Every structure is written in structure tokens, then in C-alpha cells.
């Protein structure tokens, strides 16, 4: 018999044999075939006979006891295709398969605080306001924007620029390093755009924090750049003239998306003209609806130009403070969402993270999403992208208000429905 080189492992337990170091890109495990025997064949007897027939081409043979299959490992010089054909000719063999590789259908980044971000993927996991916090929260599985599934298809482009019209951005925060491009400070009329409040940094990180870098949190758009446009002072107040100038500046200086997580109750032609100008330059404008549980603030209320975003929570309920009205387009998770924490009074802390609540933190999820879609499908106009974002939203309050309604608009943002393919069959 030519089976002296064969090691026959009969595994009593349910152990799976660990094969040669796998190439993750290979479609199947190299040098390995799985043999299904005829129902009446004894695995041990058939395995011994088969190995005798295959000779020294076989290096390892095992019986997988749970599945009752033979797992054969061949010498690397052996053609698996020929070996498979040889095996198929054996009457004891019913079928032979390569040991194909499979992979999970979710792209999960390695950012350590990812589990805190129910907004991106909510499996009903427990999350905390701070790591040492005793109070924890647990949401409803599926009350998220389906980012993990969507990232399997696209994670963004470094050519996308999201302008954050806010209190500035702390570019030195560990999860924003290298992400911030030059912006402008309309408070001091300078290029100094550091954050003297913390709100802008928090907002920016939700849209496009450095992701899959083993640090901190994940942004919805992994690779987009952030343009800090400082329009609000350290107390968080802005004026419409500065805001209008900021909108024009961002649109004229290469921003693809504008995130405006601020607003006021009054309309003004100053804002409207600036928004019209930005829209004409194919910029997508995303604005938060406001946190006063009243009508949507401006500029979000300019329905013709802006995507007005309200906030939902970890259970897919509309946040009680979220502004509403006919001009509300959709909602996104904005309650207890994780963001990069920066306190200008503690400038040395550049690795902080915290939970925050407000429509301010729902808008950047939509802004990051708009940036993803714009880079993934550059042939779409901004108006088409705005329509798609609205059309593909999940109607989370359909039980009470089916269809478009005053409180959730078209529904809660669903990134996967925008990015993922629809099987036609």
C-alpha cells in the first residue's frame, strides 16, 4: 500500500481541522477537498480506501464526525481539479467540493468605541454615557442607519469635502487628525478655525471621524475630509449674515456637502439667497431641525434647498425635543449618540468621547451619508441624492402616521437602502 505517508486522523470530538495558513483572498482553502460519501459508505473504510487510491498525493485525511464528510488535504503540487475528478470516479463518493471561503456581509471597523454607536448598528447592545458611568442604555435592535451593511459596498472617498458650519473643529483630536482641510473663521475673519466650544468637533466626528484606525469612534463617512467653517462663537451663537457668508464660502471653495447644525426661528432672504447659490453649485445642504419641539428652524425650514433632519432615539422613537413640521424631511439617530469630545477649557484632552443628544448630532449622519452617495454615484445631481435619501428612509412611525408626516418626515435614514444593491430575480 502506498499510504505510508498518510496520517489518518479520526477525530472523536467536534474539532475542525486547522489547515494551512489561509490566504483570505483565495476563493477556497488551498489544497483541500471535502468528500461526501454515499449513504451506505463507512467514512473510515472509505477514507482508507480512498487514500490508498490517491497515493502519496494526500498529506492529511480526516473524518469530520459531525458532518460525516472526509476532509482531504493534498500535496501543494497536486492539481485540486484533477484530484477532484479522480475522487468523483470512485463509486463510494457521492460528491466532492472545494472548501470555499465565506465572509461576513458586514464591514465592521475596529474603532474601540464602536459598540457605543447604536446609530450606526443597533443590535440592542448596552452602551454608556461614559466608560465608568453606572447608567447604561439599551436600544431596540435594528433602530439604526444600517451602516455596517452599507459599508460592505462603500465607505467613502477622500475627495469628498464636508463643510461643518459650526463652532470650528479641533483638528488635533486623535480621531480627526489629518481629516481637516483649511476652512474659514467668520467670527474673527481669519483662517483660524479651532473649536472654542466643542460642538463643531462633536458634529464633525459623527460625519467623518477617522474610521477603522483602531482609535476612538467611527464616522459614517470613513474617508471624507472636513472643512471647518466657524460661524458660531464660543457660546454657540451665530448671526445670519455670517451664516450666509459661510454658506457661500463653503460652496465656492469646493465643499460637496454642507452640514449646518444650528438655526433660528426666523426666515431671511440673506439665508435663502446663500442657500440658492450653494444649491446651484451642486452642493448638498443638510441642516438640523432644532431642539425646541416646535416648528423647524431656519435654514432647515427652507425645504427647497435643505434637507431638514430631526432626531430619533435608540428605540426608533422621535426625540421629544426634535422640531417638526411640513419642511421636516427625515430623522436620524440624534439622541445619545457618540461623538468626539473636546472642551476648550481642557485643551490637553484630545482623546475624549461622549454621548450627546440633539438634532445637531442627527444632521451629520445625513451629511456623511450624502457624501458617501455623492462619491459612490457621481453621476447623480444633488437634487437626485436628496430625493433618494428621503425615498429610502424607513417609516419608523408608520403605525401612527403612515407615509410622510410632520414628526419624522419620510422616516429614519437608512444608509444601506441607499448604497446596497437590490437583487433582481
Amino acid at each position, binding site marked *: 500500500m502506498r499510504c505510508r505517508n498518510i496520517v489518518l486522523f479520526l477525530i472523536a470530538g467536534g474539532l475542525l481541522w486547522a489547515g494551512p495558513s489561509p490566504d483570505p483572498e483565495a476563493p477556497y482553502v488551498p489544497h483541500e477537498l471535502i468528500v461526501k460519501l454515499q449513504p451506505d459508505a463507512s467514512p473510515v473504510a472509505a477514507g482508507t480506501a480512498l487514500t490508498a487510491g490517491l497515493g502519496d498525493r494526500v498529506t492529511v485525511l480526516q473524518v469530520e464526525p459531525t458532518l460525516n464528510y472526509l476532509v482531504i488535504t493534498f500535496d501543494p503540487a497536486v492539481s485540486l481539479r484533477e484530484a477532484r475528478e479522480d475522487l468523483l470516479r470512485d463509486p463510494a463518493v457521492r460528491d466532492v467540493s472545494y472548501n470555499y471561503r465565506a465572509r461576513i456581509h458586514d464591514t465592521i471597523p475596529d474603532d474601540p468605541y464602536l459598540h457605543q454607536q447604536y446609530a450606526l448598528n443597533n443590535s440592542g447592545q448596552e452602551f454608556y454615557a461614559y466608560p465608568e458611568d453606572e447608567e447604561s442604555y439599551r436600544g431596540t435592535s435594528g433602530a439604526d442607519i444600517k451602516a455596517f451593511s452599507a459599508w460592505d*459596498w462603500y465607505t467613502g472617498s477622500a475627495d469628498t469635502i464636508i463643510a461643518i458650519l459650526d463652532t470650528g473643529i479641533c483638528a488635533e483630536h486623535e480621531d480627526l487628525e489629518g481629516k481637516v482641510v483649511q476652512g474659514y473663521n467668520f467670527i474673527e475673519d481669519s483662517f483660524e478655525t479651532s473649536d472654542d466650544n466643542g460642538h463643531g468637533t462633536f458634529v464633525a466626528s459623527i460625519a467623518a471621524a477617522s474610521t477603522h484606525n483602531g482609535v476612538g469612534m467611527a464616522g459614517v463617512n470613513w474617508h471624507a475630509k472636513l472643512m471647518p467653517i466657524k460661524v458660531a462663537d464660543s457660546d454657540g451663537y451665530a448671526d445670519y449674515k455670517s451664516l450666509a457668508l459661510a454658506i457661500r464660502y463653503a460652496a465656492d471653495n469646493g465643499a460637496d456637502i454642507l452640514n449646518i447644525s444650528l438655526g433660528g426661528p426666523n426666515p431671511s432672504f440673506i439665508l435663502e439667497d446663500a442657500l440658492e447659490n450653494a444649491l446651484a453649485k451642486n452642493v448638498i445642504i443638510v441642516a438640523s431641525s432644532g431642539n425646541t419641539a416646535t416648528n423647524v428652524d431656519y435654514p432647515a425650514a427652507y425645504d427647497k434647498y435643505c434637507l431638514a433632519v430631526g432626531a430619533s432615539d435608540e428605540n426608533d422613537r422621535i426625540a421629544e425635543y426634535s422640531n417638526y413640521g411640513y419642511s421636516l424631511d427625515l430623522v436620524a439617530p440624534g439622541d445619545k449618540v457618540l461623538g468626539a469630545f473636546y472642551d476648550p477649557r481642557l485643551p490637553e484632552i484630545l482623546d475624549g468621547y461622549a454621548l450627546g443628544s440633539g438634532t445637531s448630532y442627527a444632521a451629520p449622519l445625513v451629511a456623511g451619508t450624502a457624501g458617501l452617495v455623492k462619491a*459612490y*454615484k457621481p*453621476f*447623480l445631481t444633488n437634487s*437626485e441624492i436628496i*430625493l*433618494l435619501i*428621503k*425615498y*429610502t*428612509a*424607513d*417609516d419608523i412611525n*408608520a403605525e401612527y402616521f*403612515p*407615509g*410622510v408626516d410632520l414628526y419624522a418626515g*419620510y*422616516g429614519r435614514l437608512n444608509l444601506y*437602502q*441607499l*448604497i*446596497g*444593491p*437590490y*437583487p*433582481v*430575480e
Partner: protein
Amino acid sequence: MYPKPDRFHRKYPGAEGFRPGGPATVGDSKSVDNKGLWRFGPERALIDFFLVLYYIHNMNAKFCLVVLLMALVSFPLLTVDLDGTVVLRSSLNSIAIEYAGAEGGEEMTDTLNYITMGVSFSTDITESLKVGIGAGYSLKKYTGPLYFEQLPLSLMIEDQSFNSMYFSLLGDYRFFYVQNFSFNLSAEVNYFKLFEINRELSFPVVSGEGTVQNSFLTGTLDLLIKFDQVEGLTIFAGPELHLLSGRFKALETLEDLSGEESVTFRQDRFFALLAGVQVEVLGLFEVKVEAKFLSHFSIRGGVIYEF
């Protein structure tokens, strides 16, 4: 000498008795005028074929296929001056294909497997030249995934079947023969009719539809050496030039948004080797089996009736 000419010019026994407008026999009470009566010939077959094509595009495809089959089967009964061959044929094919995006994007490969079942009719134009037409039904399957991302919402197909009718044009030219060998040049063009699948795109507020269409064309040019030593048995082999060109077209509408994307494909190798055998059974009909390798894998079989 032409090898076994009777196999190419056999007439249907007694067929003249069925011929509409045939010559009047003694004892007829009146003579029959042939002019203007129903006649069949290659030109009529061609006209009928294109008529059926027209109907298929405008009417019920399966009904028209039945009409075509009936017409082809009834030819031997209705004609005496038409020598030809009717073949019931089927094939199993597997071809490696390459996709190329409409914008010359990244190339992807896939495998197209298809089965055909149909009928063809050929007639002798000269002693050396045969031409024919055919039609049938095809079951096609593309194994790998294909994504249409140039649409507002991406569509995909995977392991998807597209079943449709196909139509063929056939030609065979025997350009040289010596003793038991003959050398033939055969050509065949198959058009696989467009078939589409749909998916409803349904969202809470809006709805739309995604459609994927598929059609393709194959062409073969065979240089065959036929060996005809034994009565009722012909062995043939030779090289083949095989071409395939096809297209997927994806269309999408969603409320006031719409998009369209085309993806073309072709096979990655063009030359094949072909070998087969044709056996006469009971002196009534013949069975032909052939296989093709290299550019694609194909097994074909046919039952041939000559008249």
C-alpha cells in the same frame, strides 16, 4: 463522385400526391391551374420565418413557435420540389465570458451556461451549398454576481436565469471532397432574443421598478473534415471560430428618478475544437452528436430527417 448523394436529395415517398396544385391526373373532370395556388420553396420558408419573427415581436411568442414548428414539420408533406433537412436539436453549453462596463470600467469574468432546444430547417441550394434557418427555446444562466451601480439605486443579479427564444441562420458549404473525405465550411449565427426580469422597488412613500434585460448573439465558423467510410456513419472534426457578443441593460424608475446602464460581454477565447459523429438509424433518420472544447464547452445532439 459525390459521396452518397441520396442522403442529400431524398424525396418524401408519395409526397407528390399531396401537392396542392399538382399536375392533373387522367380522369380529372377539369384541369387544375397551377398559377396562383399554394407553393412552397426556400423563398417561402424564408418569408414565413421572417413573418413568424415579426409575430413573435408583436404577439404571443409561444404560439408563434408552435406555428413555426408546424410549418417546418409540414413542409415534407406539402412539397415535392423542396429538398432539405429538418433537425430537432438541443445543446448544452458553458462559456467563460468577460464583462466590460459601459464606461470601460473594471473587467469581470463570469460563466454563461445555456441549454437550447429547437428545430432547424435546411435546404440544398446547390449540390455543395446548404442554407437553413432555425428557432427554439433557450435556458440561460449567468453564475456570478453582476452589479449595476450607474443607477440611482444599485441593482444586482446573481446566479440568474434568462430564458428566451433563439433564432438561427445556418450555412454549410462542401468545398472539396475526395474518396470518403469531404471538407466543409459551416457557419451558424444564433440570436438569443431579449429577455427581461423585473423587481419592484417599494419604499414607504414611493415605489418604482428595476429591470434587467439580456440578449446575445453567437456566431460560429467551422472547418470540418468529414469521414464517410462506413454506410450510415459519418465522423467529423475540425477547428471552430466561435464568437459571442451580448449585453445586459438595466433600467430603473423610482418616482421621478430614472436611470439606465448597459454592460456588454464577450467570450475570452475564440478558437475551439469540434468533433462528432452522425449515425443513420433504421434508414429513416439520423442522429448527430458533437462536442466542442477550448473556447467553450458544448455538447450538441440532433435528430435529422432528410427529404
